[in-house]
């Protein structure tokens, strides 16, 4: 019987193709926009997470000073020392690598090419903790690091700006007033989710930077990479304790340094995209409700148009329940067909949008199921009133209806 009712509903919908599709359009747009919003939101989150993964696996970042966001308290702490990095390396367990690093804005010059970039000084450990791979050439040797030699590895942007298609290995470039020999080029990482070009820097040994460029023995940050499966939260706690001890910070006093694990940054970023996605989806969901009202409207028209048919059915032996089901099923079939079209349109739109925004296309079966369930629910909710109106018709008056 339900199957008969379903077929009947399909036939009624086919009978008024134009009207039915315009009616379903509200649902189609609603479902499609919810799917586009959620899928793109998930894609953005995935991209942020992946980008932060690019920064380095299980990365923990230590900086002097304590910030409480823009306009908040700003404690300027003592700078970090190389000995801090050594202490962390020796006293904290479960670490893969510790890389003290400093950087400075600088002009890189090769021949008549001039590029404004930054120079980062660190050890080979930096490559591990920040997940950099050598694309061409080699990394530093021990003696180059220890001896503070004037060698450099180029980020791919700097390489492109200075050398174009030329092979830079072995060439001499100038950073500020000092000559450096190019020994390698990093594999490109591309833009970060913060919109900065990660490949726009020159990498040199820390000692060379301290001695020949900044003239300071301090470092601006220490990067630490924890082992896989180790809680970065726990490692972060241990580093904080160690640093407080080393800096003689009394109980109850605030840190004058900051330890951040990447999970915090990931959480912060995903929370932002999550809120945005929810907000946009809510707006999209409103159009689902509008679509439902459209369905109710057209079902009411249909009940009036088919009053005689309803009367005939009631006379022939249909119970109120049968008529109710007939119109309810029709509304639900209409809305769920709209839902299916909306899902297909939404997925197509989301995949196009993902390409345009260069975020990954993340297919979420959950949201597809929810969108479908929603469109069915809209059919039931907004179809019920017209269906009940049809079922409650008086058969005699319905038969007399012109």
């Amino acid at each position, binding site marked *: 019987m339900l199957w008969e009712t379903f077929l009947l509903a399909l036939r009624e919908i086919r009978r008024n193709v134009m009207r039915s599709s315009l009616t379903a359009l509200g649902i189609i747009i609603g479902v499609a926009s919810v799917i586009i919003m959620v899928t793109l939101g998930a894609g953005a989150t995935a991209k942020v997470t992946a980008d932060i993964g690019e920064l380095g696996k299980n990365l923990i970042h230590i900086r002097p000073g304590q910030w409480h966001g823009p306009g908040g308290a700003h404690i300027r702490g003592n700078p970090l020392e190389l000995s801090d990095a050594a202490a962390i390396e020796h006293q904290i367990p479960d670490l893969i690598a510790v890389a003290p690093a400093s950087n400075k804005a600088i002009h890189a010059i090769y021949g008549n090419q001039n590029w404004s970039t930054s120079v980062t000084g660190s050890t080979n450990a930096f490559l591990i903790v920040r997940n950099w791979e050598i694309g061409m050439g080699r990394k530093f040797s021990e003696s180059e690091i220890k001896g503070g030699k004037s060698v450099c590895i180029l980020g791919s942007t700097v390489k492109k700006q200075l050398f174009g298609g030329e092979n830079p290995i072995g060439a001499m470039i100038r950073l500020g007033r000092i000559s450096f020999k190019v020994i390698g080029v990093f594999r490109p990482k591309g833009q970060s989710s913060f919109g900065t070009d990660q490949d726009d820097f020159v990498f040199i040994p820390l000692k060379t930077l301290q001695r020949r460029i900044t003239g300071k023995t301090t470092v601006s940050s220490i990067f630490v990479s924890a082992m896989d499966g180790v809680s970065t939260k726990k490692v972060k706690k241990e580093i904080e304790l160690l640093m407080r001890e080393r800096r003689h910070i009394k109980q109850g006093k605030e840190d004058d340094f900051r330890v951040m694990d990447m999970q915090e940054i990931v959480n912060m970023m995903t929370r932002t995209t999550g809120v945005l996605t929810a907000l946009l989806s809510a707006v999209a969901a409103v159009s689902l409700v509008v679509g439902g009202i459209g369905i109710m409207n057209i079902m009411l028209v249909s009940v009036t148009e088919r009053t*005689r*048919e309803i*009367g005939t*059915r*009631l006379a*022939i*032996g249909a*119970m109120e329940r049968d008529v109710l089901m007939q119109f309810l099923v029709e509304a639900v079939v209409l809305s769920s067909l709209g839902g299916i079209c909306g899902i297909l349109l939404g997925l197509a739109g989301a995949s196009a949008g993902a390409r345009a925004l260069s975020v990954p296309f993340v297919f979420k079966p959950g949201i597809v199921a929810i969108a479908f369930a929603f469109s069915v629910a809209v059919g039931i909710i907004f179809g019920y009133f017209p269906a009940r109106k049809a079922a409650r018709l008086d058969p005699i008056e319905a038969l007399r209806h012109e």
Partner: protein
Amino acid sequence: MENKKINNFESSRHPLIELANVTRIYGTGDARVSALKGIDLCIENGEFVAIMGASGSGKSTCMNVLGCMDTPTSGSYLFEGIDVGLLSGNQRALLRRYYFGFVFQGFNLLNRTSALENVELPLIYRRIPAGERKARALEALSAVGLDNRWKHTPAELSGGQQQRVALARAMVSKPEVLFADEPTGNLDSVRSLEVMDLLTEFNKINKITIIMVTHDPEMAKYATRQIIFRDGMIQGSK
């Protein structure tokens, strides 16, 4: 079969339809209209009854009450001994589904639906499986001489043919009673005679009790009994 009839002696004592002092009043206060003013009527199984009368005489109201589409304001209506007044709306729908067939003046076929599907409709509500349903619908269509037109929609059929489809729809479920409300009202005389012949055939051969409302004495002649209504009362019968 014979045994069953003897065992059911109690129930077979009842006439098919028995109205006792039935009234039907519409509206309240000043707008009160008494459509039926105390009807006593008994119809036996196998009869072909014509209900006649001028418009407004209460014949249609009586038919609606008999067909369980309407309920009496007072008085009792026994169908095979069952007090219809005690039944719920759904029970009355089931009574229509399993015991009654209807033919209307305006045919009331479903638009853009083939003759076959129109005839199948009562069987769908009886939950009869598709295969048997189609066979029985075709059989009913051939009984009205339209088995070659089963694919046609009402718009593709003449008035007479439409009413024959409606007749097939009414008798396909082998009802006990077939109610016909001015079945020839929209037809010319030749088509009317065809319809009346079919009704007579259903009554004689298929043993279906027929209750027909008409204002046309020519049509009423086909009936075995004529009941004449006037001002909500039965004026006489012959």
